[in-house]
């Protein structure tokens, strides 16, 4: 994945012109052709570079585009792990309910969009999936249930802060974001995501 300077004021358009495949008989010479258009000099060969910051749908004034196939490799692995947890034939301890998976996918996509490193995951059974990040000795957990997210920051010695299931209070949402922010400030965020992380939290803080 190449990194490059992203002009922060606008995310350029990027669209898939078209793929022609499936019915190979329809194509001359039994060749499948794929054409992709990328903006602003981003070279695209085969797999896509991850060309832009996807600001959270909650805070951005500009809606960026997406392109198929640009999931970061660490989130690809996370996505595969989430898919595994829905297989009907796996052990009971590893299964999660469909609404929990939907919530976890949503949170994961928001995290990916915010440029956070992909978490590891585990579950407590079917009712929640826990996202974890460890930086040196500190750990951040996000427990994702079907309808809520709980955050926990801990050190080996103690639980530092917890964010319990809130009831329509912005302050707690802000705390959740600040938990992530305080973690993120200790972690090296890739160059092409820095502005989005800052904007993510500054927007959230200014909104409160």
């Amino acid at each position, binding site marked *: 994945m190449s990194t490059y300077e992203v002009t922060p004021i606008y995310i350029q358009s990027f669209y898939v012109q078209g793929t022609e495949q*499936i019915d190979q008989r329809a194509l001359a010479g039994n060749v499948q052709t794929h054409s992709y*258009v990328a903006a602003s000099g981003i070279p695209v060969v085969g797999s896509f570079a991850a060309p832009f910051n996807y600001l959270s*749908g909650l805070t951005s*004034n*500009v809606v960026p585009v997406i392109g198929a196939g640009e999931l970061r490799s660490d989130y690809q692995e996370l996505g595969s792990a989430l*898919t595994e947890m829905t297989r009907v034939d796996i052990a009971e301890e590893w299964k999660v309910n469909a609404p929990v998976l*939907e919530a976890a996918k949503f949170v994961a996509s928001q995290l990916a969009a915010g440029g956070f490193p992909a978490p590891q995951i585990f579950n407590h059974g079917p009712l929640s999936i826990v996202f974890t990040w460890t930086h040196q000795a500190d750990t951040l957990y996000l427990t994702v249930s079907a309808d809520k*997210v709980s955050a926990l920051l801990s050190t080996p010695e103690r639980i530092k802060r917890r964010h319990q299931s809130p009831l*329509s209070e912005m302050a707690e949402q802000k705390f959740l974001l600040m938990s992530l922010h305080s973690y993120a400030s200790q972690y090296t965020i890739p160059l092409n995501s820095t502005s989005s992380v800052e904007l993510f939290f500054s927007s959230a803080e200014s909104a409160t």
Partner: protein
Amino acid sequence: MNEPLLPDWKPLAGRVTLFYVPGMAASPSTLELYKSVWHSDPDNFQKSDNALAPTVAQGKLSACGINCTVQPGRIDFNITPLEAGKNSAPAIESLSVLNEQLDRIVAAVATLNLANVNRIALFSQMGKTCRSYPEANDALIKIMPAALGTRAGKWEDLIFQINEPYVSPDAGGDRVNLNQNWSARKLQIVTFGMPEIGQPINMASVPKFVEFIVATYSIDINNAVSPVIINGMNLTKLTAQQQTALLRDALKRSRDKFSEIGFAQ
């Protein structure tokens, strides 16, 4: 201020986006969404094994490409060009084609009754293929508001963007962003062929690169989500009527802007 007609400008892309929050037992079906809009099976359907990767349903009409993409938290209906010209960037046949498809998508949104949608967005982009950056800059200056008083220069990668938000009763009195963007950008088109399994790699499979310098004008209209949190998740939702009303209003405003500038229909 502007030329009454700008025939060299062509539509490059259009998109309707619906952002949704979890609450449904399963993600929306990309296939069903595609069929709801275009009433036919897609030519190409890709469903990834990966829970975070998008699912894409893609097809072609006579004058443009169409696709529906669903990934966690987001549904996109895209209108795209079919293929590039020899000497120009790929473009949709005409603005009327783009408008027709956007109208179609918005009409379908009214019938989809999608729950848990908390944000909508409409995107339209026009472009003009130019021979050089100065030519692109000149083309942009001609369609920028004169009050800005900008002079074209030899700079590359010009990007200028403004947001003129407004309050919409259709969004419960919340604000709607109306972003306009003027950019001179380089589009790179890669074409490569993949031989059938078992067939040798041939010349058709060597990637071919074509570049165009394109002056683009884009409109991105989207509602800002109200910061109301319920149980840890932003669950301010738009009803189907609100979604449709917002999109129709956005369509009208974007067309008004295009007319104001002088893009040919």
